[in-house]
């Protein structure tokens, strides 16, 4: 009995300690933005990695999502004779909800996992230790450019996702179901307000912070708790990073939506 209580206590202490360490890491990550070295070129490189290289997967996801929304939306709206509102249904669903969430999840899977693995390998190869020994703050050198790049790239990717998704809905609504193009675009224009775009942007910024915070944290501390630094620890860290990021995005989505609605 005592053994179980001890085990529960150990797990609880570990959990609390991990949360605390994540909080401290977050503060170092933010502080790193204002510390040397300079960040312009590293940030541009990360924008290319996080943003430009994600365009294809985001575009493909958005197009197929928009087309599915068009199919399902038309099916539902036709029961009420409101097919003309298809544009509004697709646009509002994407701009307020699906655009930021799908973008966040896709970036987590593509860029977040890659960053976690890269930092994990740097940890096990003592490259992060080497930076510290050169009196270079690893948070300022490695993490801050990724955070800045993510804050720039994710809202832009979200906007890209929204546009492609609305086009996907247009292809289905106009091309497949014969809706008038003007009706589709007019319903988009009249229903979407700046408040909806604002909500989508706020979500994308929150998700940007979450993805970088969680994925880089897991990579940075690869193997530290286990005391073992090897490929298996990198693999475990990457898996945990993607799972935790994805769950956090969905939770954050609910919280932001409930606050802003």
């Amino acid at each position, binding site marked *: 009995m005592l053994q179980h209580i001890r085990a529960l206590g150990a797990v609880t202490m570990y959990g609390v300690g991990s949360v605390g360490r994540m909080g401290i890491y977050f503060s170092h990550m933010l502080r790193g933005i204002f510390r040397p070295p300079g960040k312009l070129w590293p940030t541009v490189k990360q924008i290319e990695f996080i943003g430009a290289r994600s365009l294809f997967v985001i575009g493909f996801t958005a197009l197929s999502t928009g087309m599915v929304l068009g199919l399902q939306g038309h099916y539902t709206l036709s029961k009420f004779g409101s097919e003309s509102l298809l544009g509004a249904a697709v646009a509002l669903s994407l701009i307020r909800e699906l655009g930021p969430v799908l973008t966040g999840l896709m970036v987590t899977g593509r860029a977040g996992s890659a960053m976690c693995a890269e930092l994990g390998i740097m940890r096990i*190869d003592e*490259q992060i*230790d*080497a930076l510290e*020994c*050169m*009196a*270079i703050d690893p948070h300022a050198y490695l993490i801050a450019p990724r955070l800045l790049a993510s804050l720039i790239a994710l809202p832009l990717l979200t906007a890209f996702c929204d546009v492609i998704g609305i086009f996907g809905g247009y292809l289905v609504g106009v091309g497949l179901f014969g809706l008038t193009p003007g009706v589709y675009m007019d319903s988009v224009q009249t229903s979407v307000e700046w408040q909806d775009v604002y909500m989508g942007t706020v979500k994308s910024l929150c998700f940007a912070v979450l993805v970088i915070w969680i994925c880089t944290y897991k990579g940075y501390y690869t193997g530290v708790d286990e*005391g073992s630094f090897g490929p298996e620890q990198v693999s475990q860290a990457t898996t945990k990073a993607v799972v935790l990021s994805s769950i956090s995005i969905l939770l954050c989505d609910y919280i932001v939506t409930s606050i802003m609605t």
Partner: protein
Amino acid sequence: MCDSCLIDVRGLDSYYGNRQVLFDIRVGIPRNRITVIMGMSGCGKTTLLRHLIGLKPSPPGQLLVDNEDMGQFDPARMSKFRRRIGVLFQSGALFNSMTVGENVAVPLKVHTRLSQSTIRIITTIKLHQVGLSEFIDYMPSQLSGGMQKRAGLARSLVMDPEILFVDEPSSGLDPITAAGLDNLILELRDALGMTIIVVTHELDSAFHIADQMIVLDAGRLLSVGTPQEIRASRDERVAQFLKRQADPKQEDNDAYIKRLVGERSRKVGVQ
């Protein structure tokens, strides 16, 4: 402990969780000399090194550098200390996404305002010192293990440090390359008066370069002295280590297998 010591270790204890790995280490590291820390695998050499370079925090009062307590260093003071040192890690620790030249230039780009052309010149000079000047635009993955270590050494020397820490310089290297690296370390002491601390378990290399040797065993200080004093040591464990002998109290392989088979036979009731 000596008055001319640059680093003074005063009763250092070290833990990983609840497991103690260093026990009351007391030793002084003299200036402008090569100190070799050696011992069997797992004896605490790398842990001691990590304390000396500040990667593992030391309790207050147990580690002094120039009579300043490293256990009380704030981040700014620690950063100042680290600008005085260079560290060569076991694997070289080169950044995979940068060329060799870019790797060596990292400290110059971060800590100085030198122009790109000046940085390139200094980088070339440092790589020439380690015999890699023609590989300046190569990626680390294109170099052999020994070359990666030499590139890592060039990076650790680029800011002209006072103190150089080297972790297992000859691990994974062939004897000729390892000897070349040893001679390079000797040149650094002779030409630049550098204080160098080397962690190794290679006896030949250790005796070739050391001015002072520190022998660790299971986290405890076994012996400290010049190479001659270590060779002449009457301590049985030092002698065993130097002769590369296993502990005679440990059973040999045959006895171990016989004992294991006997135990398992008794368990299944076989005579």
